[in-house]
């Protein structure tokens, strides 16, 4: 069982993960929109990009983005719960559970991409 000090450290790591994932997602977002906007120039233009993206390094980057989005979602839900809900006792395992769920989501994406 974790002591208060260790729990405090986990909380700091969760806050850091929330921020870093948010910054990386914010940097990625304009490029994601620009890519989808290629469809304005026709399906062939979008297909050209999708063909380029079908390589291992890009798949790994996409896995990273899906994992980052999962981390940001779960860490964000934790922040909302901390600020707005009175369930203090229910928070104990949230950080570990959030990490496991985010990793599982990333792996599910990778498994689906490679299948």
């Amino acid at each position: 069982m974790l002591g208060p000090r260790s729990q405090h450290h986990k909380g700091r790591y969760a806050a850091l993960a929330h921020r870093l994932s948010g910054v990386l997602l914010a940097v990625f977002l304009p490029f994601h929109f620009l890519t989808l906007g290629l469809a304005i120039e026709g399906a062939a233009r979008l297909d050209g990009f999708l063909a380029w993206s079908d390589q291992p390094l890009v798949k790994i980057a996409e896995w990273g983005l899906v994992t980052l989005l999962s981390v940001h979602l779960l860490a964000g839900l934790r922040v909302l719960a901390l600020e707005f809900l009175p369930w203090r006792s229910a928070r104990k395992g949230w950080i570990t559970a959030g990490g496991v769920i985010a990793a599982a989501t990333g792996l599910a994406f990778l498994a689906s991409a490679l299948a």
Partner: protein
Amino acid sequence: MPVPAALFLAQRASALVLAPLVLIHLGLAIYAIHGGLSAAEILARTQGSLGWSLFYGLFVVAAAVHAPIGLRNVLREWLGWKGVGVNLALAAFGVLLLVLGIRAVSAVTGI
């Protein structure tokens, strides 16, 4: 209402809107990537769909509110960039997200 309080509320309200949308988006990403992506497959799902247009339109608006406020907090607290400059830069970033996002939604839905 003071500006910091309004930004705090806008950040939390946009987070509440984004949470279920992100969950659905993640599920769709895992489903759609199976077997590889093609423009035909994406556009067959989205073209002419008012539902996807509203879904992703709301997603874009909420993200365009949420991301700049979050970045503003990071820039102020980690880099010490405060004042009008950071506010203008991030307002511009929000507008950029809104314009590029609405353009992307329009491109894939045709609406």
